[in-house]
């Protein structure tokens, strides 16, 4: 990775932690295990911990557990080669023993790519359900365990009613459990309930985060999500194509904010509670596309899907993050315009 990119990440981490370092001080001298540690989320968490160690003497140790770390070594050699980062290759479902020095567990192992959920729904469910069970069982034996953060999903709420401005943690929607598209969501719901069961039966301290949507460096542009496609198509010099009439609403958080929020929930989230993680600022896809075009001298065209004979499907997915903001003192440092600008620069 070139020095410009490294410097960008450093600045992002500095900005996300600016004036709030003390909120993570419990991580000092601790060992954190991150499952799914080499994915998008794990990579940003590693960047953040590395930043805290290098600039604020946190002296934290990081264990990144994943099925394969080869891509990570290529993608982030500056992290992979660090003394304070250990890479472990293991199928999450087979985790038996964790180093006794681990005091915090952040369980983020799952693939959010809905193409995989459709192609292999059984594996999707298996990894989430049995992987969560395996990591919780293994964590039971940790002598100095302080907290576990189970990374769930903002999708567990099911479709957000269009007249509901933002989804709060106490909203009880649900998905169609008979649909193949629900494999990921239902498994995530199961994992949350399993965490509650472990918490109740073994008095473990387990908190849940429900992440929504993110955009920024390290996120692959081939992912089948609107903003990724918009950015990819605009970088390729093509038109930005919007499915529907552009009124679908999404919100996006920049990943350095995401990493800070997740670590904050890990250290001080209340056991048994779930916290939404994402941007509370909804943006219509049409507006999002326009925001992207502002970054180009020759602006990409925006094309709405032609086939619009009926009322086109509209959806809304925006979290209410009041709980995280008020109880954990969290805020967003990077707005959507800046997130887009930085993502485009990263990929140019």
């Amino acid at each position: 990775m070139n020095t410009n990119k490294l410097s960008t990440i450093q600045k992002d981490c500095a900005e996300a932690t600016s004036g709030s370092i003390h909120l993570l001080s419990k991580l000092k001298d601790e060992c954190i295990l991150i499952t799914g540690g080499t994915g998008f989320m794990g990579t940003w968490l590693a960047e953040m911990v590395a930043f805290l160690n290098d600039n604020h003497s946190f002296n934290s140790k990081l264990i990144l557990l994943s099925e394969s770390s080869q891509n990570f070594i290529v993608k982030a050699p500056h992290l992979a080669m660090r003394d304070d980062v250990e890479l472990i290759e293991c199928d999450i479902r087979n985790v038996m023993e964790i180093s006794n020095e681990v005091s915090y567990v952040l369980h983020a192992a799952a693939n959010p790519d809905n193409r995989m959920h459709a192609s292999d729904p059984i594996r999707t469910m298996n990894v989430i359900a049995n992987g969560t069970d395996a990591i919780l069982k293994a964590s039971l034996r940790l002598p100095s365990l302080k907290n576990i953060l189970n990374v769930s999903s903002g999708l567990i709420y099911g479709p957000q009613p269009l007249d509901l401005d933002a989804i709060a943690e106490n909203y009880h929607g649900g998905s169609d459990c008979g649909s193949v598209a629900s494999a990921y969501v239902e498994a995530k719901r199961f994992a949350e309930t399993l965490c509650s069961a472990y918490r109740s039966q073994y008095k473990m301290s387990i908190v849940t985060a429900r992440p929504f949507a993110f955009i920024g460096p390290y996120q692959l542009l081939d992912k089948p999500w609107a903003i990724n496609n918009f950015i990819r198509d605009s970088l390729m010099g093509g038109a930005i194509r919007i499915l529907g009439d552009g009124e679908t609403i999404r919100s996006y958080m920049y990943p350095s904010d995401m990493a800070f929020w997740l670590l904050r929930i890990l250290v001080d989230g209340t056991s048994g509670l779930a916290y939404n993680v994402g941007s509370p600022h909804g943006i219509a896809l049409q507006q999002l596309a326009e925001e992207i075009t502002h970054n180009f001298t020759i602006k990409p065209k925006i094309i709405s899907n032609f086939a619009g004979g009926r009322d086109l499907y509209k959806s809304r997915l925006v979290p209410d993050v009041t709980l995280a903001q008020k109880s954990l003192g969290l805020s967003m440092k990077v707005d959507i315009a800046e997130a887009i600008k930085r993502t485009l620069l990263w990929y140019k």
Partner: protein
Amino acid sequence: MPRILISDSTLRDGSHAISHQLNSHNISIYAAAAEAAGVPIVEIGHGNGLGASSLQLGESLISDMEMLQNARSHLVNSKLGIFVIPGFATINKDLSMAIDMGVDVVRVAAHCTEADITERHISYARQKGKEVYGVLMMSHMASKETLIEEAHKMELYGAEGVILMDSAGAYLPNDVHEKVSALVSNLTIPVGFHAHNNLGMAIANSVTAAEAGATILDGTVRGFGAGAGNTQLEVLVAVLEKMGYRTGIDLYKILDAADIAEKEMMKVIPTIKSESIVSGLAGVFSGFLKPVNRISDKYGVDPRDVFFELGRRQVVAGQEDLIIEVAMKLAQKQEEK
């Protein structure tokens, strides 16, 4: 006024009707006429799609690359489309070439219960910034519940619409309404319908699909296509116009395009022959018509019996080898009598 996106497969499905012998002149002249008529999508290629030219399915007269190159040079406002069946078309050899040639629209098709095989092709085309649709072929063979599930997979892979294909011309309007409306209510992306005319229902079925919420309809001028042919495009445009739908197609110019195509490309205009009626009733892919007739003739059996037996075996495109086996068994039975 509701809009319908028309995809014109004259230069793709029509290829079946002339054993895939479309030449450069045919493509040039029709692509130019379709462009002039304002046809939104013009689909080009071998009848079975990109990369399908082969001894088994019939060899194209000219290569995929030549066809695309030629069509591209005549299409400005109309989009250049291709039809892709994974297995016949590979990503590295065929799809990437087509994208390099400037294709705008990629339709990735699979048998109606096998959407899983479309993931890589749909993803690849989306990654290349192309407009991508999923196509469920032989959709009369699956229940609406199965079709919803398979279409849903295509949606999750990145398809921007899903088209139900009545490859055998086996649907009646009630079937169309049931299945199209089920998809419309369960998907978040547009739904389309591609009809064949074996039972004389292509226009009626297409109109029913639109009334059930489909916003993408396929057709070919003069119904140029396999067997009894497809939905006759110029008729469809006229009917839709009369019903108050907008297609963006100039009626006079699509009528002209149909006249040109008839004169330049069609040795015989598709009609509903006896075997086509039987293939529609048996639910067998219309593209089987020519090989069934040829092989039945060779083995001295009634092609109608061959169609019904193929239907009983639920054959799908790509299983043309079975025609010989069926014809041989029927011939053997005849001898035993």
